[in-house]
């Protein structure tokens, strides 16, 4: 590094985003002695990973990994976590940044024991974003069983209603504080790591694939929630239209990815995600038939390739090379017919299934919400890291579409880059 630059004004690191990448960056930096502020906009940590049923390829639940990380955070006094917090502005130069953080009110303080009395007292229900709106929850809620911090939260939608008062009255520990208001916090930090993650591409925009028009067409992230034991159906995979157990499921790969009309890039994870979800269905319904329509199956690396080969060997799973470009719904049965050309045989296929899963891709958060800092983005909204300039870095899926493993590797690397900014030797 250059010698003419000044010594860092602050020795701390700001990590924006408390998903698997942000957690990793924060922990890696903190565990070698640096002070870290971890800012998360949701009321819980864990991000997209917390919504999964299982990781691929080992098919272990996300508790494995997240719990360990939460434990490490609890034990580490150098990490300060802010949930329900948004970065409003970052100004300054590498080694000397000022970040303005808006802390949104949780309306529940640290007295909360997660007894759940407040939720029981509430009468109104609100859509559950954690489950992509597939169920409704009370306005006082615990985001999910593994929430960290383990504390209830009041939805802003019930503030000012009778429900808010009911929740307050029900609490035996004086944990509900309706007078909480948004606060702004200024942090002086030397480096910022943006681990702002991704959102599923809006399937409503893929007009020819029928999502939003036909209830039995869902997205891959909805499938994760449905299959997860803490999901809206307690883990039962069923058709949204009639709660029937599906006898056949079609997976539509590249739904909006590798598509100049939508996301021009490969989202990297959707092939493995669909192959993994095929195992969810096969496990629950041993006779169910699964049709996976793809352009190319992309399972990079020896372990993913082996996973793919194992799926291929399953005689109830049919892999068809050809992208689904048309869907129809039978108005009586609500069955879905997907249409594709099998490019190997040159025959058009009309496969009728009980439900279809769109393998929608990942869009970086910055594609739809501008990050309030002097960063460089590519045309798709991914952060382009400028290591010459240093100071601020994109990690995980804010930087490129990636699986959990690569996100963690990348996030660890960005912890190192942040530390280099502070040390400057």
């Amino acid at each position: 590094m250059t010698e003419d630059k000044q010594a860092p004004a602050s020795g701390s690191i700001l990590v924006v985003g408390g998903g698997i990448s942000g957690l990793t960056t924060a922990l890696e930096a903190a565990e070698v002695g640096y002070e870290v502020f971890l800012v998360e906009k949701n009321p819980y940590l864990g991000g997209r990973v917390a919504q999964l049923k299982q990781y691929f390829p080992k098919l272990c639940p996300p508790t494995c990994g997240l719990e360990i990380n939460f434990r490490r955070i609890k034990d580490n006094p150098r990490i300060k976590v802010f949930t329900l917090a948004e970065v409003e502005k970052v100004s300054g130069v590498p080694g000397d940044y000022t970040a303005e953080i808006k802390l949104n009110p949780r309306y529940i303080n640290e007295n909360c024991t997660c007894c759940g009395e407040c939720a029981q007292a509430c009468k109104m229900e609100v859509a559950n974003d954690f489950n992509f709106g597939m169920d409704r929850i009370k306005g006082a809620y615990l985001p999910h069983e593994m929430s960290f911090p383990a504390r209830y939260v009041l939805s802003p939608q019930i503030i000012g209603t009778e429900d808010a008062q009911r929740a307050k009255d029900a609490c035996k520990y004086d944990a509900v504080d309706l007078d909480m208001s948004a606060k702004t916090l200024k942090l002086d930090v030397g480096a910022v790591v943006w681990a702002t993650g991704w959102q599923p591409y809006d399937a409503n925009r893929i007009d020819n694939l029928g999502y939003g028009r036909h209830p039995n067409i869902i997205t891959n992230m909805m499938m994760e929630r449905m299959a997860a034991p803490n999901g809206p159906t307690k883990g039962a995979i069923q058709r949204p239209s009639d709660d029937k157990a599906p006898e056949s499921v079609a997976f539509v790969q590249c739904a909006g990815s590798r598509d100049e009309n939508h996301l021009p890039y490969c989202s990297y994870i959707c092939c493995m995600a669909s192959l993994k979800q095929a195992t969810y269905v096969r496990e629950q319904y041993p006779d169910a038939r699964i049709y996976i329509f793809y352009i190319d199956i992309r399972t990079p690396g020896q372990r993913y390739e082996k996973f793919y080969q194992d799926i291929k060997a399953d005689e109830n799973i049919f892999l068809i090379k050809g992208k689904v470009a048309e869907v129809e719904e039978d108005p009586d049965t609500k069955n879905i017919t997907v249409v594709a050309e099998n490019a190997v045989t040159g025959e058009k296929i009309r496969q009728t299934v009980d439900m279809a899963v769109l393998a929608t891709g990942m869009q970086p958060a910055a594609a739809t919400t501008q990050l309030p800092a002097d960063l460089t983005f590519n045309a798709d909204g991914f952060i382009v890291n400028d290591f010459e300039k240093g100071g601020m870095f994109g990690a995980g899926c804010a930087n490129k579409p990636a699986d959990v493993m690569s996100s963690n590797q990348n996030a660890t690397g960005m912890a190192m880059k942040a530390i280099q900014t502070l040390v400057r030797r």
Partner: protein
Amino acid sequence: MTDKYLVEPDIGFLNEVVGLGGDTLKKCYQCATCSVACPISPDNKPFPRKEMIAASWGLKDRLVGNADVWLCHNCGDCTTLCPRDAKPGDVMAAIRSYAITEYARPKGMAQAVNKINKLPMLLGFPVALIIILGAITGLVNWSPTGEIVHAKFISTWLEDILIIPASIFAVVVFALGLKRFIADIHQNALDAGKTDKEKIDAAEFLKALVRVIPRILKHSKFSQCGENEERATSHMMVFFGFIGLFIVTGIFFVVLYIFGIHGPYSQLNPVKWLANIAGVSLVIGSALMIKNRLAKTDQVSTYKDWQLIGLALALGLTGMLTEMTRLGGAAGLSYTLYFIHLVFVFALFVYLPFSKLAHLVYRTVAMAYAEYSGRKF
């Protein structure tokens, strides 16, 4: 499909298809969205996905003699949904354009029709022909007097000396081309497993042709195309404009040589009504086509596209204006326009088998073949 296939790319063919508007074909990654997006593609061996890969591999023999490229009406539904921004519709059009040149003989003439710099020569040829033949035969009167009758200027004899051989020439060129074309599309269908008919039965084939013609007249395939429906309307106007004028010309010819009655006909004559309606339809239809093409920036428009629409518009305009100036009594102007009109009519017939208008014959035959071979499209 054979087990072993040695790919022998024809680079010259590939480059020509690229030059004829198929420049996006290399973007294709074979996802097959296009085959599903196409509203008229059959379920068995649908197009245009297989044409896209054959084109990018330069497999000329799989494309030029492939009836499927003619079943496509270039509506652009495939192009709209293509995730790679490739334009399968334009690639198919480029292959058709190449095929017209391929089947037309003499080759030199086909190449000349494809080149804009040969246009003055192609139009100059009929001009010179009228002048020279007029001088030799004395059938052109360069200073007609009295009431405006175009036959006073250029005799109907001379007209027919020009147009009849021109039509025969077109028929012969088509006949020779079709002989090879039909053999090729049948072989292609056999190789690709698109038909179970071993040989072409001429009588059955003609029956299929008869079944197809009403569909063509109704534009029933054309109007299934979703993305640019308005094209079917303008195409229908030009199509029926030409048919109407062809009928009128036929009646003229018969009445002239059998009954010895000369034009121009009275405006009250029903044949004249038909002529006027057809002429207006041709002008409006071709003007609409120009408007649509100019507005549709995502579709490739090549010289051959403009050449055909331009010719249709020129034919319609010069024809209508000749009549209007005649009725208006502008003799000099009317005779001049008539001369120009005649040049375009001659060009229409002589260059027909080489121009984009040849699709009239090739697409009809390909659709009849698809019907004959049991290809459900």
